[in-house]
């Protein structure tokens, strides 16, 4: 029977996250792509976008996750989306939902190979609006209602789980359900503006532990493998159990810059630009891609959960500890220490690493 070989080295990414525009009509406080958009050297024009899609099809990339900014602000976005679909590539669009009109929804409903993910950061207007901006709750749900009324089939509502909306997870799940949408919970990571909000928004150990149990009990909730560092036994057969950056995925910025993943878009992780070099060559050869592929999280090797999370998310580890090759500071063994675990090498979330490691283990640092 087919086996799970997800740690195998692949010849090309399976999916590519493409922040297709640097424009956005909202200013969410935790925007992961805020820095990328600020530093972007413009946008690829439509012809260049189509060339990139041709290349992704030639590489046999299965899926493109379009994000931004807000993709639907780009006047030619629907053409680009259609072009990718004609190549047989599955398209997932992450949108803030505020640009959805009846006409646009009519077009989207007719598309095959399309998944839509609408961001909403709470089940209550006050909670969401405190993060995504005044009045956005209502505007987002208007867009969601349009999709729901037209029975758009592959719809999910996505909430980035923070200390602010944590209490509303159950209510959010029911809200999504009432629109015929699946619930998607994403991990809050200290990337982009998220790094500025880290102390305020990150989850406590108790919240991490609770979330691990909740996800185990609710296998139908989508996470995009965000929370594999918290995976408990109930969920261990689902999804990936290791970081996909530079192995299964990579990210393309609005100007064509390539990074190992959408959460590793710091200049230190710049791998190349598709205007100058093919994405396939960048993925295969760039030093930072090879570094991440070979990354071993040394202090984790003796942990009882290593096979479940392989050290967790290097993006969180990097932005919190300033170093690659250290454990994810929000892993389950930090939230619920096991017998003899964590070892001395595992810092508490947010604690400067140097205070916890007598001899800091530093693997290849970008």
């Amino acid at each position, binding site marked *: *029977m*087919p086996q799970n*070989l*997800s740690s*195998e080295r*692949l010849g090309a990414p399976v999916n590519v996250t493409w922040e297709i525009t640097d424009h956005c009509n909202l200013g969410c406080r935790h925007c992961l792509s805020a820095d990328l958009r600020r530093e972007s050297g413009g946008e690829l024009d439509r012809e260049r976008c189509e060339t990139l899609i041709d290349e992704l099809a030639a590489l046999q990339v*299965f899926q493109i996750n379009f994000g931004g900014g807000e993709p639907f602000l780009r006047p030619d976005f629907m053409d680009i989306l259609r072009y990718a679909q004609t190549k047989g590539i599955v398209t*997932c669009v992450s949108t803030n939902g505020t640009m959805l009109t009846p006409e646009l929804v009519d077009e989207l409903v007719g598309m095959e190979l399309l998944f839509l993910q609408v961001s909403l950061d709470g089940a209550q207007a006050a909670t969401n609006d405190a993060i995504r901006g005044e009045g956005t709750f209502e505007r987002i749900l208007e867009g969601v209602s349009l999709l729901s009324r037209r029975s758009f089939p592959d719809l999910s509502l996505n909430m980035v789980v923070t200390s602010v909306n944590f209490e509303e997870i159950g209510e959010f799940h029911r809200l999504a359900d009432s629109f015929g949408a699946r619930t998607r919970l994403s991990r809050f990571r200290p990337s982009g503006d998220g790094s500025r909000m880290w102390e305020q928004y990150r989850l406590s150990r108790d919240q991490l532990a609770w979330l691990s149990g909740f996800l185990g009990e609710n296998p139908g909730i989508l996470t995009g493998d965000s929370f594999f560092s918290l995976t408990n036994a109930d969920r261990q057969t689902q999804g990936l159990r290791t970081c996909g950056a530079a192995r299964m995925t990579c990210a393309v910025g609005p100007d064509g810059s390539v990074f190992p993943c959408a959460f590793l878009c710091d200049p230190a992780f710049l791998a190349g630009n598709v205007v100058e070099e093919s994405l396939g060559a960048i993925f295969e050869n760039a030093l930072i891609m090879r570094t991440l592929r070979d990354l071993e999280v040394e202090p984790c090797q003796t942990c009882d959960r290593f096979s479940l999370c392989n050290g967790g998310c290097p993006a969180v580890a990097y932005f919190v500890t300033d170093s690659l090759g250290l454990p994810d500071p929000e892993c389950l063994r930090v939230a619920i220490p096991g017998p003899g675990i964590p070892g001395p090498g595992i810092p508490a979330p947010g604690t400067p690493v140097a205070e916890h490691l007598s001899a800091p283990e530093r693997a290849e640092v970008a």
Partner: protein
Amino acid sequence: MKTYHLAPWARARQERFGLLFYDTRSTTMTFVRSGDRLVAPPFDDRAVPLRVVTRSPAEELRVIRVLDGLEAKGLVVAAEPE
């Protein structure tokens, strides 16, 4: 031997270890350690059947078992020989 085609919603690509399948309905992947014994159709011509390259009856049996598993997952569709 039956022939096997990719299901209309399935994709497959060749990797060093064998085949990597992708289900467009759920966006899930299936890794198959088939080495060079199963050859995926071209990405842009999914009508071509999967090619089975085996060197012994025992190997053929193993590959058929894998294909049956993939059929149960809805990733390939089997057709009886004409």
